């Protein structure tokens, strides 16, 4: 009997094994069945995102400033790739193993190809393409990459792209880990228009990852390219300005269409290669860019401030006329080359003698304006500066704009201590030196208003936005008006005209075109002075205005005026050639 029981234990043991099997079956098929069903569905369906191309950025004549070209990208499918394949792949192209590891462990995109190496060489791409059957979980995809045909020339306005960060991914669900976003300039400002919408394609795959074809129940979503952005920029002027500036170490140029505020060119020198930054710049190169004393990443036209030097004189004079503080015939003490105030001596460029306002502007006589500043007093003077809004941002559609500085009473009290400063500072301010600071763009706007009797337009780069060749948005120029009288403006404009005809700005004169403008020389001790010139043309009916600054070269008339001359020349050449056609 005991033996019989022992023999039966074999059967009982078998029974226990079967119960264990049934329990596991119940767990897999009944309790977890739904989950495993989903897994099996996911197993044979691959979701592929097809990239929507980023919109172009075009100049006013439809020349591309930012475009895309097709490229090969190496993608891996996290759940299909194995470590051996990665090793094999690494022999062909160098891969970022950290990135791949995080991808494989991130469960979000298990069955979606994710780009790990972009813009690979066609030779390498075809080499991998041939080996695909031995590389499970690897695909080669074609995707558009950003190119910047004008490269350094317009890098500061166009900006560049960068791979999305994990923070940005969290804050905006539009983006996927393989996306690029605008990192600076217009790429960043108009990101929402420029970016393309990815399409989605579902394909059935077998265990080796071979695509068997589309799945009828799952409709494909087509990618949608981003909008094209058309700018007011004229690429020819932009290029010319860049070339002209590149004779020097550092500088900036702003060109404005006076009839609508459109920016014709906006250049900062030195510059950088935006494609390099978009691709992912090598660390060493980045250190070089950021530690360069010339700060190539700074957009000097809107993000650097300088003393305006003598270019401030016409602006102050206009208001002094308006407020009847002086008349056009007012003379101060004659100029003998220097001006004594307290125990200090302030110099002038020449010995001008006794001048009326017109001549003081034309010859840029410092002694005249020292005395005008003293006559105005600090409060009046700083009030005039704020009339020109030099301490405000212009609101141009570019990131990183800086505001200028007005040294008013409270500013000086904070800087030097209450009553610890003297009117000697004011003398200096009279000729635009010292703590008066302005961006080249703001100075260009001040002259826009001077040239058009107080009327000027909000500066902007955007002309229109197009979606598949039809305009979906056209920028409406915004007119602004400063309360100045035509009479006073005429006096100043006459003087500005003569500055170029026979005064300090003769370097900007062009036969057959009447150019008006003003030179400026901003002291920058102990280094050499910054050279300014702001000019517009035609003098009687202004259409175009350019403002140029060249850092640490010397006199404005000698260095900045020729730049403006060349640009104005080019502008009219182009305009006339269009008119003739």
């Amino acid at each position: 009997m005991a033996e019989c029981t022992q023999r039966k234990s074999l059967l009982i043991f078998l029974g226990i094994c079967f119960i264990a099997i049934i329990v596991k079956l119940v767990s897999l098929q009944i309790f977890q069945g739904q989950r495993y069903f989903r897994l099996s569905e996911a197993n044979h369906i691959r979701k592929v995102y097809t990239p929507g191309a980023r919109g172009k950025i075009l100049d006013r004549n439809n020349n591309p400033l930012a475009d895309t070209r097709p490229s090969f990208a190496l993608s891996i499918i996290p759940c299909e790739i194995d470590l051996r394949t990665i090793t094999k792949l690494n022999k062909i192209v160098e891969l970022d193993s950290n990135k791949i590891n995080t991808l494989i462990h991130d469960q979000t995109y298990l069955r979606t190809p994710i780009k790990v190496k972009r813009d690979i060489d066609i030779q390498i791409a075809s080499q991998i393409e041939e080996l695909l059957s031995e590389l499970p979980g690897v695909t080669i995809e074609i995707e558009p990459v950003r190119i910047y045909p004008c490269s350094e020339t317009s890098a500061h306005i166009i900006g560049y792209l960068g791979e999305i960060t994990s923070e940005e991914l969290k804050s905006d669900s539009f983006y996927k880990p393989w996306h690029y976003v605008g990192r600076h300039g217009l790429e960043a400002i108009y990101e929402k228009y420029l970016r393309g919408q990815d399409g989605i394609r579902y394909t059935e795959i077998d265990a080796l990852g071979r695509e068997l074809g589309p799945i009828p129940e799952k409709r494909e979503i087509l990618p949608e390219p981003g909008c094209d952005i058309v700018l007011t920029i004229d690429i020819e002027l932009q290029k010319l300005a860049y070339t002209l500036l590149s004779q020097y170490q550092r500088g900036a140029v702003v060109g404005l269409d006076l009839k609508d505020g459109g920016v014709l060119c906006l250049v900062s020198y030195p510059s950088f290669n935006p494609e390099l930054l978009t691709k992912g710049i090598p660390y060493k190169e980045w250190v070089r860019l950021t530690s360069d004393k010339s700060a190539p990443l700074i957009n000097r036209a809107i993000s650097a401030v300088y003393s305006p030097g003598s270019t401030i004189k016409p602006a102050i004079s206009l208001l002094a006329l308006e407020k009847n503080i002086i008349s056009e015939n007012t003379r101060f003490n004659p100029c003998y080359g220097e001006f004594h105030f307290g125990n200090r001596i302030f110099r002038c460029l020449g010995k001008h003698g006794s001048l009326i306002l017109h001549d003081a502007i034309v010859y840029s006589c410092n002694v005249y304006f020292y005395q005008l500043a003293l006559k105005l007093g600090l409060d009046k003077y700083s009030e005039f500066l704020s009339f020109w809004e030099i301490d405000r941002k212009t609101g141009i559609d570019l990131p990183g704009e800086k505001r200028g500085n007005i040294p008013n009473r409270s500013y000086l009290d904070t800087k030097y201590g209450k009553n610890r400063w003297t009117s000697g500072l004011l003398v200096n301010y009279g000729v635009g030196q010292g703590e008066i600071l302005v961006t080249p763009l703001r100075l260009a706007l001040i002259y826009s208003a001077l040239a058009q009797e107080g009327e000027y337009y909000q500066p902007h780069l955007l002309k229109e936005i197009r979606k598949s060749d039809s305009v979906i948005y056209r920028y409406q120029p915004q007119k602004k008006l400063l309360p100045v009288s035509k009479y006073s403006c005429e006096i100043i404009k006459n003087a500005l005209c003569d500055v170029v005809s026979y005064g300090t700005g003769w370097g900007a004169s062009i036969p057959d075109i009447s150019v008006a403008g003003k030179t400026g020389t901003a002291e920058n001790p102990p280094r050499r002075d910054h050279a300014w010139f702001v000019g517009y043309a035609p003098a009687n009916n202004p259409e175009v205005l350019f403002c140029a600054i060249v850092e640490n070269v010397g006199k404005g008339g000698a260095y900045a005026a020729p730049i403006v001359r060349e640009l104005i020349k080019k502008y009219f050449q182009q305009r006339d050639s269009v008119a003739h056609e």
Partner: protein
Amino acid sequence: MNKLSIPSVIILAIILNIVGLVTIYSAGGNVYFLRELLWTTIGIGLLFIVIKIPIRFWENFSSHIFFITLLLLILVLFLGKGSARRWFDLSIFNFQPSELAKLAIILYIAQRWAYKKVEFLPKDLLLPLLAILAYSALVFLEPDLGSGLIFLPILAGMMVWQGFSIFQVFLLFSPLFSFVFGFSTYLWILYFVAFAVISYRRITIVSWIVVLMINILAGLSSPIIWSNLKDYQKARIIGFLSPWLDPKGMSWNLIQSQIAIGSGRIFGKGFLSGTQKKLAFLPNRQTDFIFSTLSEEFGFIGAIITLGLYFALLYNIFRIAQKAQNEFARLVAIGIFMVLSYQVVVNIGMVLGLLPITGIALPFLSYGGSSLIISYLMIGLVVRIHKESQV
């Protein structure tokens, strides 16, 4: 009851074989299906021949069969086809001597142990143990880990049947346990202390010390053997212990198998509609992993019915063993019961992820000539035993 058992064992085997054919058709297509059908015919033919052969014949020739098989197992190492030298190419089917070895060992041990009082002494245990070691070693060399392990449960089952206590069986297999635990030092120490305490005083002090020494040697050998294992064998063990470590690598099979089974849910995806199977995610879908294919397409219902059929078959074999006319027949029947039980439990346990993947066929379901024909042969023996017990 007994009258019904004759047809029921055959009928159950054939039903299971049909389930297998249907699943093979779905998993492998026409070619596999037709070949399996051919082997089914051969198998059933053989079954009816074996039914005619008296048990006496097998008893008389058990030693011959044993040594011929031994020879075949040696020969296959030299003449075998395939990357693992497991089979002879007989053009109709690949003949696997390791399948025949299952039956040979049963007959051999049954012949040695029948008609006498078997004791827990070397005189009764040494030869069967040596026979098993020889067979296992030769099959391991092929290399075929799964089939190599099959001889141990046969011996264990027959020992239990013969009245050896569980402790004695355990004692005999203790070097093996020591070997398995030897892969982890801590586990081995735990095992060894427990073993020493349990076995103390139950055997003579000299045997106790000898057994402990053997255990220590076995435990020490495992790290050495581990370093000599083939990479894929190591991978299987590691893969079983932590399947999600490298989902595309060694445990891919197990994960895909579980997905296939689980995704079948209660009613299955339907005949020919398993996506796991169809798109080749499932490995060896018509051989070792056929139960996954079956569960994917026929769901929990299909899996449970299949399990029920197996249990009924095994239960009937067990009943026949109990009722058999003599000790040899009883031992043969219980040996066959053990072989089939082991294969069913280990194969299904493996595809479900309960046991490591060792690569063992599911009787009557897995595609493969040798396995099917030997299975039918064993059923034939069981039926003959039953017939003789009726007289």
